[in-house]
C-alpha cells in the first residue's frame, strides 16, 4: 500500500503539488490523471525520490520512503518511462537485467529471469535477447522498458506515460498486455497519463489532479457518473460520456444467463463498448456471451447496453 500524507512540492515558490493525500491499495492499478503541469509526474517521481518532497510523508507498506538510501529504495520499485529510456549501448538482456545486476544476482538467475520476462511480453527470447534497442520497433522498445521495470519482481511499479510516444495501434496492444500482466501478477501499479481513455481502460482507481491538488479519487465508473467538480466534469469530457460509460462496464454486469443468440460469442469480461461494436459490425441486436472457458452461458441485447 502506498500512502501520501499531505505531500507538497514547490519550485521557486510555485507550488507544483500541494497538500496531496492519497492511499493506493496493494494490488490496485491507480492512474494519476490530469492536464500537463498538474503535478502528476512530480507526484510519481517523489515516490521513488527522483524528486525530493518538501513537506508531508510518503510511505510504502507503512515504511517512510526516506528510511532507506534513495538507490536502495529505487531498486525495490519498478520504473518505466515514456520513450522507454533503454540504454542504447546495452543489449536487450542487459537492459532487462539492469536492476538484478545492481542487486548482484547470479548470471544464471539473471538469464532465466530475462527469458521469463521476454516470454511474458511475447517476445521470442532467442531472437530478442541479444538485440540492441535501435534494432527494435517502438512498441518492442516499450515492452522491453516495462520488462526491465519488472525484472527484480518489485511489488510496486511506477509508470510515467509509458505509452505516450507510440502509435495508437501499438498503444492499444500495449495497454492490453499491461492489463493482462497486472491481472496475472497482482502488482501495485501507479500510472501517469493525460489520456482519459487510457485511464478508463486500465485503472481500478483514478486520481485526478488539478494544479497540484487532488480533484477526485474514485473508481472509473464513479468518476463518470458522479464527477466531484466542474473541473472533473470538464476533464472527463461531456462529449461521448455515454460511450465512455460503456467502456468501463463489463458484459458480465448485463448478461442474461440462460438465454442465447446467434453468432460468435463475446467474452464475459469484454466491455459493453466492445459488445456494442460487435453488434454494430454484425447488424445484430443480440450477442451470445461466453465464460472464460469459452462455453456459452447467456446472451446480451442492445437494450441491455443502455439499461
Amino acid at each position: 500500500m502506498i500512502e501520501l500524507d499531505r505531500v507538497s512540492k514547490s519550485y521557486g515558490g510555485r507550488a507544483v503539488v500541494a497538500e496531496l493525500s492519497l492511499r493506493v491499495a496493494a494490488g490496485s492499478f491507480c492512474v494519476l490523471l490530469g492536464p500537463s503541469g498538474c503535478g502528476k509526474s512530480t507526484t510519481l517521481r517523489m515516490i521513488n525520490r527522483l524528486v525530493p518532497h518538501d513537506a508531508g510523508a510518503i510511505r510504502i507498506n507503512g515504511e517512510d520512503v526516506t528510511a532507506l538510501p534513495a538507490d536502495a529504495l529505487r531498486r525495490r520499485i519498478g520504473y518505466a518511462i515514456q520513450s522507454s529510456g533503454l540504454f542504447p549501448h546495452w543489449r536487450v538482456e542487459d537492459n532487462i537485467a539492469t536492476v538484478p545486476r545492481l542487486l548482484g544476482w547470479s548470471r544464471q538467475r539473471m538469464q532465466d529471469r530475462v527469458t521469463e520476462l521476454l516470454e511474458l511480453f511475447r517476445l521470442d527470447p532467442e531472437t530478442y535477447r541479444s538485440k540492441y534497442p535501435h534494432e527494435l520497433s517502438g512498441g518492442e522498445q516499450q515492452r522491453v522498458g516495462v520488462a526491465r521495470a519488472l525484472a527484480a519482481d518489485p511489488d510496486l511499479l511506477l509508470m510515467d506515460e509509458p505509452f505516450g510516444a507510440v502509435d495508437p495501434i501499438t498503444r492499444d496492444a500495449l495497454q492490453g498486455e499491461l492489463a493482462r500482466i497486472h491481472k496475472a501478477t497482482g502488482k501495485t501499479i501507479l500510472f501517469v497519463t493525460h489520456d482519459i481513455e487510457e485511464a478508463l481502460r486500465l485503472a481500478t482507481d483514478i486520481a485526478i489532479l488539478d494544479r497540484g491538488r487532488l480533484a477526485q479519487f474514485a473508481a472509473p465508473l464513479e468518476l463518470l457518473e458522479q464527477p466531484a467538480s466542474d473541473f472533473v466534469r470538464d476533464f472527463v469530457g461531456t462529449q461521448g460520456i455515454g460511450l465512455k460509460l460503456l467502456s468501463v462496464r463489463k458484459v458480465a454486469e448485463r448478461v442474461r444467463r440462460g438465454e442465447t443468440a446467434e453468432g460468435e460469442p463475446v467474452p464475459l469480461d469484454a466491455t459493453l463498448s466492445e459488445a456494442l461494436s460487435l453488434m454494430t459490425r454484425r447488424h445484430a441486436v443480440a450477442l451470445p456471451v461466453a465464460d472464460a472457458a469459452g462455453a456459452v452461458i447467456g446472451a446480451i441485447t442492445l437494450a441491455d447496453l443502455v439499461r
Partner: protein
Amino acid sequence: MPRRLEGRSAGSALLAAPVLWVGVFFLALLLAMPHAGPVFHWAFPAVEPPVYDRASFLALFLSQAGIVAAASLAASVTGIGLAIFVTRPAGRDFRALVEALATVGQTFPPAAVLALAVPAFGFGARPTIAALYLYGLLPIIGNTVAGLEAVPAAVRDAAAGMGMSARQVLWRIELPLAAPVILAGVRVSVTIGIGTATIGSTVGALTLGTPIFDGLAVDKMPLVLQGAVLVALFAIVTDMAFARLEAWLRPPGAAR
C-alpha cells in the same frame, strides 16, 4: 558489464586497414631518410650535407612522440576530469569559468606560450609540453561536455530511477555513450599537438621540426623538406589510428 560485439578487431580486418600500410610507409621513410643522400644531392646539388645528420630521424620522431604523448595525456586527464566535474550538479557553477579559461588557452598563439614558458621551465622539452598541454585542453573539454550532454535525458532518468548511484550512471551509461565524442576531441588535440610540437624546436626541444628550423636558418631547403614530410606523415598516421579507435569504441547503439 555488457560485452562488446564480437569479431570486430579480427586480424584480417587489421591487415586490410590503410592505417597499417601508411604506418609502415612512414616508418620505412623514417629509417631510409639518412640513406637518401644521393637523391637529395641530385635534386639540390649545392646543399651540403644533403640530409640532416645531427641526430637520427628516428630519435627526433621518438622525442616528438614522447612530448606529444606527455602533453596529450595530461590534457586528456585534466580536460575529461574538468568536463565531468562541470557537468555534475556540484560543479555546474564553474562551467562558464572553465570553458572561458580553456578558450583563452587556445587563443594564445603557441609561439607566445613557448616564449612565456621558457623563463618558467628553461629550454628543452618542458616548455613545449606546457604549451601543447594548454593548447590541447579546449577540444577535449569542449567535446567531453558535448558528449556527456548528448546522453538523452530519458536514459539518464531511467538509470537513476532504476537505482544506479551517480557514479554508476557516469561509468556505465554516460561515459560509454560519450566515448566516441570524447575521443574525437582527443584526436583533434593530438593532431594539432603533433604539428605544433615542431615549433618547440625553437626553444631547444628535439622534434622533427628541428631539421625544418635548422634548414630555414641556413637556407637549406632539403632539410626543411625532410622534416616537413615526416611531420605531416606522422600526423596523418596518428589521425588514421584515432579514426580506427573511434570506430572500435563507438557503442553499438549510439548515434552515428
